[in-house]
């Protein structure tokens, strides 16, 4: 049944609609693929029985003529989305056996539209990481390997399980989240498409919080059109998230294939950073040429505060995390380690339950928010954040979208950067600006490096203008004609 796992989401939905195969058939094919791919460690919880039940229900709906837009399509869910009755851990010991009594809005939207859940996907603990190595379940292994090599590479992070599962054809698409690049960098590292929509497009309700002013859900998929189909289902106003925008969700797939002639594309000169591999620079030039060929006008723009985005992020995100993660006190849910008194119980519980990177970020956050440092660090970072957003405002006065590389390198080996937090943070240098400004950003595969590893290009759009990104992404995808896939070794 491997043919069924090779289909794009769109082709699968067409096949289901024409009754070429049933949801039960395509779901079983994916369940088998998941079971055969445990070496990747992409899934932290497989839910095959639930998947088959959901598939049968989807087939029954289709037989009654009541099929939804995603009916019968098996997908994976990042284990940061609460799923009712299905263990949700954020890949942290502190939530070890947490079983949510409610469903996140984004996943509820997907089930409303008929999608089938294959299981929960691995991630960096609390989505804090860029290599999936901080997960309490161990790292995900990238299905891609260097040509002729057999070293295990990172799929990126934090949505490493989502990206690896989509690249390895274990699911037709996956949910992911992006606080500083956690959808786009893994997509780039695995030859998949990922979009972080405008802040507020997708409800954050029921997603385990990391940094609330930056967190945003989005899909990882194998094509631009598939990502558009998934985002259309995931997005939508939700009164349960006060930052969810009260706007209509367009049919994003209708933008794929639209002409991009006459669009003005900005190329930010500050994204040419020292030490960037020549191949990434060359791919960027190639992307510019492709968009020119498609009729776009290329404009050099300046985003002068780009280099300050990461340091500002590493104040804002840990500060919000230290506040958000205060809820893990061992009293109402999750792990509890008893101490001699209440304070000691808190301290022992949190020491045992949080991983090292999570603790480091909580401590940084508590430090920059503490008396005497709040103005020097936290307030300063919020002001720099405004400067970064103003840079984008000025650029979007002149252009319709921006084109940049997604990440400063291809996938690196597991263990390569895990001893140096700052080196790891630098992975997000091209993606994090978008989170600070709340803008939509898409990564799509555009070529490979000399080792045959995929490289991504990033498109950045105006707030709520994902449609233009889908049109541009469609044009780039067509021009790049990226056909590479990970050779199966698992």
């Amino acid at each position, binding site marked *: 049944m491997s043919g069924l796992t090779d289909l794009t989401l769109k082709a699968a939905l067409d096949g289901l609609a024409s009754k070429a195969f049933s949801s039960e058939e395509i779901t079983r094919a994916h369940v088998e693929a998941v079971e055969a791919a445990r070496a990747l460690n992409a899934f932290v919880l497989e839910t095959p029985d639930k998947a088959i039940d959901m598939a049968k229900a989807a087939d029954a709906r289709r037989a009654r003529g009541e099929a939804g837009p995603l009916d019968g399509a098996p997908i994976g869910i990042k284990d940061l989305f609460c799923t009712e009755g299905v263990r949700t851990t954020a890949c942290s010991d502190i939530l070890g056996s*947490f079983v949510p*009594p*409610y469903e996140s809005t984004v996943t509820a939207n997907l089930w409303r539209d008929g999608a089938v859940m294959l299981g929960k996907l691995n991630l960096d603990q609390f989505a804090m990481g860029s290599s999936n190595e901080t997960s309490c379940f161990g790292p995900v292994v990238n299905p891609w390997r260097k040509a002729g090599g057999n070293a295990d590479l990172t799929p990126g992070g934090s949505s490493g399980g989502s990206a690896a599962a989509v690249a390895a054809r274990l699911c037709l698409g996956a949910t992911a989240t992006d606080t500083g690049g956690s959808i786009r960098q893994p997509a780039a590292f695995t030859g998949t498409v990922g979009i972080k929509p405008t*802040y*507020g497009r997708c409800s954050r309700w029921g997603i385990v919080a990391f940094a609330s*002013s*930056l967190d945003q859900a989005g899909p990882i998929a194998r094509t631009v059109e598939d990502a558009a189909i998934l985002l259309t289902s995931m997005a939508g106003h939700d*009164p349960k998230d*006060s930052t969810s*925008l*009260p706007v209509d969700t367009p049919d994003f797939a209708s933008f794929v294939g639209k002409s991009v002639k006459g669009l003005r594309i900005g190329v930010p000169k500050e994204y040419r950073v020292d030490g960037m591999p020549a191949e990434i620079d060359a791919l960027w030039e190639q992307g510019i040429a492709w968009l020119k060929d498609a009729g776009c006008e290329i404009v050099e723009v300046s985003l002068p505060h780009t*280099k*300050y985005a990461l*340091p*500002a992020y*590493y*104040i804002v995100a840990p500060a919000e995390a*230290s506040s958000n993660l*205060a809820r893990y*006190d*061992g*009293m*109402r*849910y*999750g792990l*509890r380690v*008893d*101490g001699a*008194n*209440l*304070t*000691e*119980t*808190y*301290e*022992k519980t*949190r*020491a045992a339950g949080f991983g090292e990177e999570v*603790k*480091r970020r*909580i*401590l*940084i956050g*508590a*430090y920059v928010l*503490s008396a005497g440092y709040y103005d*020097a*660090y936290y307030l*300063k970072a*919020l*002001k720099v*954040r*405004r*400067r970064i*957003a103003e840079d984008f405002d000025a650029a979007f006065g002149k252009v319709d979208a921006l084109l940049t590389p997604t990440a400063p390198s291809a996938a690196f080996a597991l263990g390569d950067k895990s001893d140096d*937090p*700052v080196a790891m943070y630098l992975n997000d240098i091209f993606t994090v600006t978008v*989170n*600070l400004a*709340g803008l939509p950003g898409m990564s799509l595969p555009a070529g490979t490096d000399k080792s045959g590893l995929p490289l991504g290009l990033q498109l950045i759009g105006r707030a709520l203008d994902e449609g233009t990104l889908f049109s541009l992404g469609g044009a780039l995808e067509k021009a790049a004609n990226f056909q590479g896939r990970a050779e199966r070794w698992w």
Partner: protein
Amino acid sequence: MAIDVATVRKVARLARIAEPEERLASLADELNGIIAWIEQLNEVDTDGVEPMTSAEAVALPMREDVVTDGGSAEKVLANAPKRAGGFFVVPKVVE
């Protein structure tokens, strides 16, 4: 503004994370590495800049002050590490 061992001890206490004494020095080094890198923000002129607390320009919505959910004690207690009847069991809070 280098972070010393006493500062790490204080911050860990504020964050309610038990860090063993022997870990404090290495944590101070790690945090200093990160903070030193963050200090480049001081190069940015932010005089007169309004702090940006939200990625959205819109004001937070208001809703009617009415009960919208509730009556689900079993669900609320379902994941409790310790419970007795309809209550969470917690360590003694008031001496």
